């Protein structure tokens, strides 16, 4: 065993040795003409007076230099009068002229964002080393953004990223598309990485059709240091098969040495639905339409006029809904159910406490946060407690151990959401007849005389249970070792993520869906365990202008999930909610799935004089989703950049701070399909006469493999006038091949489809950002930034069916066909109402010249709108004057369409709106007599079937004022007197204003459905640092 270098030579001797080596080298390679050569030494420190190892000390005219050692010391041979330049990544260069002194202490100041460090997946890159379009959002940008799920922070902040929530219910999951879709059947969702560990972000909520609960609801916004969105292939190719949808890297705040710093951030807010939404008919309006319907349907046949309708109704009261007979006698009342189920100014509160500090050898960060949000609909609220504890131990000079732990406790009192449920208050808002009373004379809930199939939402909110509780612990242990080989570092990480979700539901015995069962109850429990191991070997070498870094990474992920549910019914009393009290077990079920992923990655970064940069990544990965023979895949990315601002011909131009040209190409994969798809399988879940049955389950495919997604990107990044003006323009183009397609099979096979790798999809877009610090003075700043991004896709090839015909994937209202973009709206086209008869007419062909009254004869016509936006824009403004700052952000998304569902129940001119449920007050504009021009058909007293047509297809373009925050920072003198180091108070408005292009659209443009819409809120809070 040899003695280590550092043990043999004392510090001083080591430096001496190095100096001699360089001196010799210098003597051989360069002509030392100066007469008075001497050796000078010194130390390079940063602005915190911490020594900087690896800083470059360069004799300017001679282009030779040394690096500082671990203690920031250097020793170099110079002549008096030489100019020596000291530089270090992230700091401003500093130079000094050699004079009589022999020792120098150089303190470097951090540079402006020109040398911003961007956190990538497995390491960091400086801005000049980037060869792609990663976008970093820092904690200053985030602040304490009042969201319940941290992915929502990104909405509108990143060009090319489109986010929309699944529901306004607090804690709900969101959908994210980065640069549009690259797949039809595999997932288009990005991969989330927290502190280097890829995590599974999904809906944790159990219970059928109940509110969703996102994994990201377990992360506090105030614990986040930065979020980096990786969009290009050099960055995402490190994630191999999971990178094709982009990668969102969340970096949490870590421990730091220093005096113990405490931060408290607390706020209180009020929320309402962001959009008022459609207004339903009042009872008298509905009655008017009802009688219209009677007249239109029976008037001619039974020989009565419009005025005679009421008499006809009373004469034949046995055949009709008698509710209007008594309505007049009861004072012509109307019940505003929309008002009853809405919680106005739903309160929310959030308090976060964190502390950080410690010595060099042991430092920590701990935080705890509590959030409670009430939804804008009755019967729903959300609570979370999130805590973190990070510790870092410096075991020795070479060895650092850190442990990062996070726990979260979530509780979601949700509601039935994903469809129209008679037991959901959101459905009641739109479907409940205004003639149904909410309260009895004595003030109790009217549950016996509602005269409808819906249940009383207020009663159910009080007496039914729909509760999801989640508990999760994530713990990461890291050991970082600076090996004896210089600049070679090994980091090993073990991460364990355990979570358990419980779900309880209870339908009461008195009123609602549980009546037939005498009350029913159910419990579900799911447990997941994700275990990740990473070993990261990094090597860096800086020789003069050449800077080289290499990382070799090994990663193994083991994920498993088990689930059980049990339902029972038959309670003999109210107020009992658990399975033990139910007489009659109804069913049990349980399952287990697991998955494995292992990968080996190599990543290199090379730059010359920070001018020319080359990044290369290669990943070899295997995933258990695919059959053995096709399990392994190779993924790679290559990027180059030319930092023109460092070229001599540009350096002369004063105002150009950065002019970077970059291009990259790479290939990632997509394995986002259901597990066990490749296996031809038999299922054991059926049961008959008390015995278990066996049935074919999956068709299987022995050749199933990854989708491949190859992208090219070129871009230009410019910073001028010391960031007074900056901009990006990026063009990307990608192609998905071996696209996983669910190829439809004839249903006679007993399978509806088989997954095959067929199909090609092209996508491309442009991202342009322009901004700048327009005013940058001591007491005033003004920053403005706008970005525009486009995205379009085209299906190049789809599978062919059994007889060689190209398959068309046609859904209820969309289609996917070769030569067109994904998910084009495809439905019959409405030509309005026939002025003579008041019935609907449709276009009979694509040219839209002929019309027909028969729905079945009208063809489906493709719209030029698709489901996804093709154009997005955002605008960001930050103004600061002395102690006050105002920031605002607005987003735009457009080019897409949105189709209103449930129109049959609320929009059509038939009994559903006038008799059985309720209708939207736009129905009042209906056709009444020949010659009327309107697009609302005449009311008829019958029940129409579902009609899918573009009458309810809207242009979904919208602009939303996403965020506006006013902050006041107290003066330091004032604050210090109170023993604080800084204090701020703020008022923040989220989603305060929304503009919709299509004013026929009465719903929130982010999604149309009966789910809780997005909310707008106002929050007041304070932030204090001790």
């Amino acid at each position: 065993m040899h003695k280590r270098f550092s043990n043999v030579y004392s510090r001083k001797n080591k430096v001496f040795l190095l100096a001699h080596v360089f001196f010799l080298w210098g003597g051989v390679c360069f002509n030392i003409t100066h007469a008075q050569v001497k050796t000078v030494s010194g130390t390079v420190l940063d602005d915190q007076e911490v020594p900087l190892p690896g800083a470059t000390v360069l004799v300017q005219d001679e282009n030779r230099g040394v690096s500082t050692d671990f203690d920031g010391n250097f020793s170099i041979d110079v002549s008096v009068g030489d100019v020596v330049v000291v530089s270090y990544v992230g700091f401003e260069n500093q130079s000094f002229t050699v004079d009589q002194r022999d020792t120098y202490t150089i303190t470097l100041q951090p540079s402006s964002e020109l040398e911003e460090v961007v956190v990538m997946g497995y390491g960091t890159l400086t801005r000049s080393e980037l060869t792609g379009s990663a976008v970093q959002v820092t904690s200053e940008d985030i602040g304490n953004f009042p969201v319940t799920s941290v992915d929502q922070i990104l909405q509108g902040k990143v060009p090319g990223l489109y986010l929309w929530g699944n529901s306004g219910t607090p804690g709900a999951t969101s959908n994210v598309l980065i640069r549009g879709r690259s797949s039809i059947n595999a997932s288009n969702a990005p991969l989330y990485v927290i502190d280097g560990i890829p995590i599974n972000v999904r809906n944790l909520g159990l219970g059928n059709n109940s509110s969703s609960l996102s994994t990201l609801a377990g992360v506090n916004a105030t614990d986040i240091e930065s979020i980096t969105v990786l969009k290009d292939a050099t960055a995402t190719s490190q994630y191999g098969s999971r990178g094709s949808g982009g990668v969102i890297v969340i970096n949490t705040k870590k421990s730091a040495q220093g005096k113990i710093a405490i931060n408290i951030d607390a706020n209180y807010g009020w929320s309402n639905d962001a959009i008022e939404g459609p207004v339903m008919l009042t009872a008298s309006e509905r009655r008017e339409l009802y009688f219209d319907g009677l007249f239109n349907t029976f008037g001619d046949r039974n020989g009565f006029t419009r005025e005679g309708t009421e008499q006809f109704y009373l004469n034949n009261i046995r055949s009709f809904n008698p509710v209007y007979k008594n309505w007049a006698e009861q004072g012509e009342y109307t019940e505003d159910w929309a008002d009853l189920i809405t919680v106005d100014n739903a309160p929310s509160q959030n308090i976060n406490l964190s502390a950080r500090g410690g010595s060099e050898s042991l430092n920590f960060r701990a935080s705890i946060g509590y959030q409670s949000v009430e939804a804008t609909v009755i019967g729903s609220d959300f609570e979370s407690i999130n805590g973190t504890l990070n510790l870092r131990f410096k075991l020795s000079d070479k060895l650092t151990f850190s442990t990062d732990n996070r726990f979260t406790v979530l509780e979601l009192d949700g509601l039935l959401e994903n469809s129209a449920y008679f037991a959901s208050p959101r459905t009641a808002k739109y479907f409940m007849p205004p003639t149904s009373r909410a309260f009895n004379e004595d003030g109790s809930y009217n549950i016996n005389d509602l005269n409808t199939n819906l249940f009383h939402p207020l009663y159910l909110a009080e007496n039914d249970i729909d509760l999801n509780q989640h508990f999760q612990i994530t713990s990461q242990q890291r050991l970082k070792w600076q090996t004896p080989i210089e600049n070679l570092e090994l980091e090993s990480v073990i991460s364990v993520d355990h979570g358990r979700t419980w779900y309880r539901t209870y339908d009461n015995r008195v009123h609602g869906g549980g009546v037939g069962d005498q009350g029913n109850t159910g419990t579900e429990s799911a447990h997941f365990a994700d275990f990740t191991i990473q070993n990261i070997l990094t090597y860096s070498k800086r020789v003069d202008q050449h800077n080289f870094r290499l990382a070799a990474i090994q990663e193994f992920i083991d994920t498993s999930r088990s689930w059980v549910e049990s339902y029972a019914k038959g309670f003999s009393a109210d107020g009992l909610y658990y399975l033990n009290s139910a007489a009659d077990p109804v069913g049990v079920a349980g399952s287990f799935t697991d998955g494995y992923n292992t990968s080996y990655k190599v990543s290199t970064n090379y730059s010359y004089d920070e001018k020319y940069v080359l990044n290369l990544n290669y990943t070899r990965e295997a995933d258990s989703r695919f059959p053995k023979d096709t399990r392994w895949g190779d993924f790679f990315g290559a990027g180059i950049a030319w930092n023109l601002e460092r070229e001599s011909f540009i350096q002369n131009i004063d105002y150009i701070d950065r002019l970077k040209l970059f291009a990259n190409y790479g290939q990632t994969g997509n394995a986002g399909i259901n597990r066990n798809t490749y296996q031809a399988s038999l299922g054991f879940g059926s049961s008959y006469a008390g015995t278990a049955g066996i049935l074919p389950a999956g068709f299987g495919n022995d050749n199933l493999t990854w989708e491949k997604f190859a992208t090219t990107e070129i871009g230009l990044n410019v910073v001028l006038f010391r960031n007074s003006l900056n901009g990006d323009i990026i063009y990307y183009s990608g192609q998905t091949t071996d696209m996983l397609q669910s190829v439809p099979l004839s249903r006679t096979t007993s399978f509806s489809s088989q997954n095959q790798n067929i199909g090609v999809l092209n996508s491309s877009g442009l991202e342009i950002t322009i901004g700048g610090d327009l005013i940058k003075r001591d007491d005033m700043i003004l920053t403005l930034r706008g970005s525009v991004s486009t995205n379009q896709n085209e299906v190049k090839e789809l599978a062919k069916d059994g007889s060689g015909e190209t398959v068309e994937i046609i859904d209820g209202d969309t289609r996917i066909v070769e030569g067109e973009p994904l998910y084009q709206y495809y439905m019959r086209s409405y030509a309005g109402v026939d002025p003579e008869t008041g019935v609907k007419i449709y276009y009979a062909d694509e040219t839209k010249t002929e019309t027909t009254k028969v729905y079945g004869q009208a063809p489906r016509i493709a719209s030029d709108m698709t489901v996804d936006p093709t154009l997005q824009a955002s605008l960001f403004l930050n103004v600061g004057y002395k102690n006050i700052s105002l920031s605002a952000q607005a987003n735009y998304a457009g080019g897409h369409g949105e189709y209103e569902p449930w129109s049959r129940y609320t929009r059509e001119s038939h009994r559903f709106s006038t008799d059985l449920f309720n209708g939207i007050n736009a129905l009042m504009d209906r056709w009444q007599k020949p010659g009327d021009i309107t697009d609302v058909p005449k009311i008829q007293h019958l029940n129409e079937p579902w009609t899918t047509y573009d009458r309810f297809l809207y242009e979904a373009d919208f602009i939303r004022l996403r965020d506006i925050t006013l902050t006041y920072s107290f003066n330091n003198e004032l604050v210090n007197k109170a023993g604080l180091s800084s204090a701020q108070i703020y008022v923040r408005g989220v989603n305060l204003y929304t503009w919709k292009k299509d004013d026929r659209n009465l719903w929130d443009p982010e999604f149309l459905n009966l789910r809780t819409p997005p909310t707008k809120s106002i929050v007041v809070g304070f932030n204090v640092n001790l």
Partner: protein
Amino acid sequence: MKKKSIYLIHLLLTSILVISCSSEDLEPTLATIKGADSIKTEADIQGVLIGAVDILTSSNWYGRDFIIEDEIRGTTVFANGNSGRFENPARYAYIADNGLGVWATAYDAIAPTNIIINSDFSEIDGSQENMQSIVGQAHFVRAIAHFDLLRNYGQQHLGGNLGIPIVTEFKGEELSPARNTVEEVKGAIYADLETAYNTISANATSKQFPSRLAAKALESRVALYFGEWSRAAAAAKLVIDSGKFSVLAADAYVSSWEGTNAANSIFELAFSATDNRGINGLAYIYRGCNYGDVEVLPSVQNLYEASDVRLGVLGDETCSSDVKLVNKAKWPKTDSQDDNVVVLRIEEVILNYAEALLEQGQTSAAILELNKITSKRGASAYTSVTKQDILNERRKELIFEGFQFFDYQRTRLAIPVTPGHNNQTEISSTDHRRIFPIPTYELESNANMVQNDGY
């Protein structure tokens, strides 16, 4: 020293972890499903048969839809729109886009029967005798599936000759089969039923699984449907003469629907408290205030004599302030929805026999058969009988069980307008709407499929 050992341990751990993963470690666990090659014992074969029979209980098939879609297109019930269900078939407004329905479900049942029928029994452990009986039962299920598909989608009674694809192989060569002719399908059904009768063991007497006599009973139904009277008569006679089943007594009639394994049941589908179609079942659609969409037309009461016990099947029900006439007795348990569904019973076989006899000119024998039923129903006996009498008696006896529309179909009679029904135009014997369209999904995934005329 301590530091060095930490380094060594670190290196060691790292290298172990780095080299430890091979492809085998990446095999996922199949916890709730198994590979398709795992049928190795008699119990596995039995399991597949259970799976196939279970599919008959689907909501799309005998769990509800197949029966209701027949009834709603007749003259007994109408769709009152309470939850919007069954209005399309009621108004003869069914279109190809309306979903797969029993097309998918029946083929889902045929697939496992093919797994059984085509198994290599030399490779499977167990009693060859028992397994042959199971194979016979599989033939029965395959026959009833092809028959029900043919009744819904085949052109036999509209003057066309296209039937439905006959599928006899699981994941076979032809994954996009064309429609076989009606004659071919009929032949395949008869062949399956004959094999069933010949191979199902005499010991397979459970009414909840296919038995030998169930195969004959079904054969009488199929033959009657195609007007093959002597075949129908022979099959029916075999079942009746076995003496294994008896017509329900008058006082037991209404209550028998609540039980299981009644004396008149030949083949019934088992449901239980933990295995039933719930809100998507027959009880929930025939009555109740949430669904209860299928309401009885008032004129139905006039079908029965006052003393007929079958009047007890009808009843009144009040929802809010509405009173409606409903099916009260058949599948009565609205709250637990766990009544068994009888698919074949002796009374239908007797009616099949009577009609076959009448068509062959044996009128007095026909009257004798009919009176076996009327005598147990509190109805007057027949002294003379016409074809219409038999159709009426079928309607009275088999009401709500999914027979009337198919009787109209096979007799090619026009369906008259009934006051109160959703459909107010007469459906002539050549109206293309008397059969369902081939579902759009099938047309789009199978290039060899041809749609029915008029759709």
